């Protein structure tokens, strides 16, 4: 954590409040230890769920980035062949495990699949620009997701530590009571 003032929320996810003193926390919130533990566990579950969602998004993006890079690579190759008069000879996959040979004469444009059943023909330069900006966007969102995940991780840790502290506090209280009871009995 960079600063002492940590954000109170991030993207609508509230930060876990740090408990300075367990006793004060319990009296202020009017909880006994077991209800406090239930509430905290509940919170923890919510954080964990949000974390799982984020991690899934992250995996998605991390898979997408190499795909975009592949596209950039092949467009770059086509671009470098432009003006040389060379024909590219390639083996490409027709179906799983079946390959055929193709000759690609010097090309000025490629067709990019935009999704939603739309394919558009672009001049190589423009295709490259579009792919590069896609790559930048994906990398930027990945960065944000990683930061979000770190924030969530912190909240999970704070909540876990708080749970352990409330639990310990409770054990301690019970022990005190028991010892008192013994003293009175003797």
């Amino acid at each position, binding site marked *: *954590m960079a600063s*002492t003032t940590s954000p109170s929320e991030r993207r609508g996810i509230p930060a876990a409040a*740090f408990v*300075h003193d367990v006793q004060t926390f319990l009296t202020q919130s009017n909880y006994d230890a077991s209800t406090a533990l239930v509430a905290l566990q509940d919170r923890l579950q919510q954080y964990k769920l949000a974390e799982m969602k984020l991690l899934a998004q992250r995996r998605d993006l991390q898979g997408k980035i190499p795909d975009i890079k*592949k*596209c950039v*690579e*092949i467009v770059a*190759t086509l671009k470098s062949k432009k003006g040389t008069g060379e024909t*590219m*000879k*390639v*083996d*490409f*996959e027709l179906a799983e495990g079946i*390959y055929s040979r*193709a000759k690609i004469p010097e090309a000025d444009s490629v067709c990019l699949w935009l999704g939603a059943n739309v394919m558009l023909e672009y001049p190589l330069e423009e295709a490259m620009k579009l792919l590069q900006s896609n790559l930048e966007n994906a990398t930027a969102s990945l960065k944000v997701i990683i930061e979000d995940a*770190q924030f969530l*991780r*912190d909240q*999970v*840790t*704070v909540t*876990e*530590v708080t749970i*352990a*502290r409330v*639990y*310990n*506090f409770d*054990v*301690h209280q019970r*022990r005190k009571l028991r010892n008192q009871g013994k003293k009175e009995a003797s």
Partner: protein
Amino acid sequence: MQQGDGQETEVTWEDQQNINKFGRLNNKFHELEDEIKAKKEMAENFEDAGNELMLTDEEEVRYLIGEVFSHMPKDEVETQLEGLKEENKEELRKLEEEKKAILAQMAELKKILYSKFKDSINLEEE
């Protein structure tokens, strides 16, 4: 994090932040381990590809660009491969360095946290 035997040690915000930091570093450490593993595998693959190239008699080999195998002269592929190898090696070196830095930071935090919380805290992997 483990629930102790009920001994009370006051946990300050600073302690909490240290624990958070440790958690983050530990996460990062595991991610790095995975990345390093992947890069090492990559290096092996490059090595294999290099050896195969040396053995082949063909002047033209197929080189994977994007999703297609492009027919390319052998020596051009060799240069490409060398470039990729170097790049991979450099990336691997950076990752290893980062891992070392993280381990050092983790050791530092462990010292601080264990000296305060003794066995009320557990920072080891399960």
